[in-house]
């Protein structure tokens, strides 16, 4: 039991260890098998001169690898808001990393219950993502394993595939006119995308309340309306901004964001969160720090 319990938190441990060191990796030392955690390589901001933003022959921005190359995006300092005291450096951020000017918690227009819930979650972090739940919005982008954008222009679809988390995908309907009525709330919601110049803008509604949008636990409700902006500012850097418009949890819309760093020579691979997931057994077991409030027994 102890072993399985420990493994449940391997992922969380990996995150904190790989993201928490603040070292600045060197893009050119990417030799595998040197004991580095995979996700920690290739990250680190603008120190390495970057090629310009790649485009497809038809002029579209290419959010993925250029022909004959491979690569994935990894987040840098992936937070949407920061503590008032002891801001520190978020996961994956070296001293020279590009950092988005996120609001401090005191500047986020929380409703009182939402602030109280965030504080609770900060103290009792057992977030759904670590239990293999799908994670919508920014949280999909925040793992040490990377994401890839796959655009299928003839079908007017953009897909965002994640390796970590539940190993699934998000679908963005490009140029769709409006969101369907009476959406059943879901983890990824219903997403409509369009290009504003060089920026991919994704407008999403129809979220459920079963996931966190970041690793810290910013609360959201089914009223969440999210506007995300993805701008590949050069070959190696992506600016990510998200506006949280959720009158259920906040008194007004607010915006946070982070940068993502290109990790060349890497591809989507099979990562199955459930591989070592014995959580359902733990729920009826004795591990004290696990939430056993679920009445569902498989």
């Amino acid at each position, binding site marked *: 039991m102890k072993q399985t319990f420990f493994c449940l938190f391997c992922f969380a441990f990996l995150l904190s260890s790989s993201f928490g060191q603040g070292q600045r990796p060197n893009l050119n030392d990417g030799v595998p098998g040197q004991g580095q955690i*995979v996700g920690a390589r290739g990250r680190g901001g603008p120190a390495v001169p970057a090629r310009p933003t790649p485009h497809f022959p038809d002029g579209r921005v290419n959010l993925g690898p250029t022909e004959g190359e491979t690569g994935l995006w990894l987040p840098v300092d992936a937070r949407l808001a920061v503590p008032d005291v002891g801001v520190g450096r978020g996961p994956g951020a070296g001293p020279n990393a590009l950092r988005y000017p996120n609001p401090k918690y005191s500047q986020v227009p929380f409703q009182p219950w939402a602030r109280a819930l965030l504080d609770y979650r900060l103290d009792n972090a057992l977030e759904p993502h670590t239990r293999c*739940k*799908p994670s919508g919005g920014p949280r999909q982008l925040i793992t040490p394993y990377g994401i890839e954008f796959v655009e299928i222009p003839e079908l007017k679809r953009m897909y965002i595939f994640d390796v970590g988390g539940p190993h699934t995908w998000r679908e963005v309907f490009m140029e769709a006119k409006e969101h369907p009525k009476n959406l*059943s709330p879901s983890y990824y919601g219903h997403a409509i995308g369009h290009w504003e110049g060089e920026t991919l803008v994704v407008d999403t509604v129809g979220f459920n309340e079963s996931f966190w949008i970041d690793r810290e636990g910013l609360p959201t409700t089914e009223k969440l309306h999210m506007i995300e902006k993805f701008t590949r500012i050069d070959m190696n850097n992506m600016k990510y901004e998200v506006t949280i418009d959720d009158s259920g949890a906040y008194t007004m819309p607010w915006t946070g964001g982070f940068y993502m760093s290109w990790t060349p020579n890497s591809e989507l691979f099979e990562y199955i969160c459930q591989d070592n997931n014995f959580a*359902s057994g733990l729920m009826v077991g004795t591990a004290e720090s696990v939430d056993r409030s*679920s*009445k569902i027994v498989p």
Partner: protein
Amino acid sequence: MKRVVFGVLAAGLALLLRPAALMAHHEILAKFDNNKKVTLRGFVTEINWKNPHAHLFMDVRDGNAVSNWAIELESPVDLEKAGWKADSLKPGDAITVLGIAARDGSRQAWADSVVMTNGGKKVFDVRPPQTAPVARPSTAVPRTPDGHPRLGSEPGQPSGYWANPSSTYLVENGVKVLADEYGLLRNIADAPKIAPLQKWALDLYTLRQRNFLKDDPMFLFCKPPGGPRQFQTRYGAQFLEDVERKRIFVLIGGGNRNFRIVYMDGRGQTGRLNGDADNPLYYGRSIGKWEGDTLVVDTKGFNEAFWFTNGGLPHTDQLHLVERFTRSDATTLKYEVTIDDPGAYNRTWSSGWTMQWVEGPEMPPYFCQDNRP
């Protein structure tokens, strides 16, 4: 909320849901006993609207005591297809549940029907409605500019996916064996016929069958449906051809909504550097090529942590699959699979079925992990 216990079945009932009477769900028969019929009258205390199975909780009077029962239902995806919404029942509603009770004697039941005792305006049918294939004016197979059939959607046309497999369990071609949707044999004596199983594999398969498939890792722990099983689930599969990067994504509606990648770029069956290079995988390493109008996918490198078919036929890490996908007309996908696993079978054998094109709706957002802890 009033937690008064409701003892009398009032008139004017509305049938909320009624499953197909003899539909034997593998997970259901593992946990619940078809011979333990129960009728529960009481009040809803809670609805848990999550996959893989929704639950409602109700207070039931038992003598002078009031006890809370967990009532297990179909998936929200299926319930919503049948017209039931998350808020169709609310805490406090008086209901009567007809169902079967848990084998272990705990206060759990699978609902065969849920009847609302007042109001009663809606009628639901819990049977997962087979999504009717959409008749298309032309049966011509859509093709890509370079001439091979499209396994996915056609530009400018409604999107779609493949579902309603004509068989939901593996059985060797030419063998007639009956099983239910989840591969549970109607007659356990048929076990040796279903495939050329080695002795140990037959013993394990028989054990899994005798346990009503209760150890199914896909249901218990949401492990992926690797191999043919990804084309056996209710929730379908979708093909996404990424021409620019020479690969085909298989988007899997069942299990935990994973994706599998078939590489068309001529690479070998090696893992990803900086990724899964050293691990045997749930979905294996798949490489594909077109042979005429058929996509042929060769997959090796499986692990043994999952069931590769409904019904629990065993496999080993020597499993080598050759899958052939042929869109025989616009609305039919022929699936053929050859199973080569010298660790579990005496010889190579084949199986196959067809799937139907479901046009219009998106593949339902089903996540097994939804109500798992």
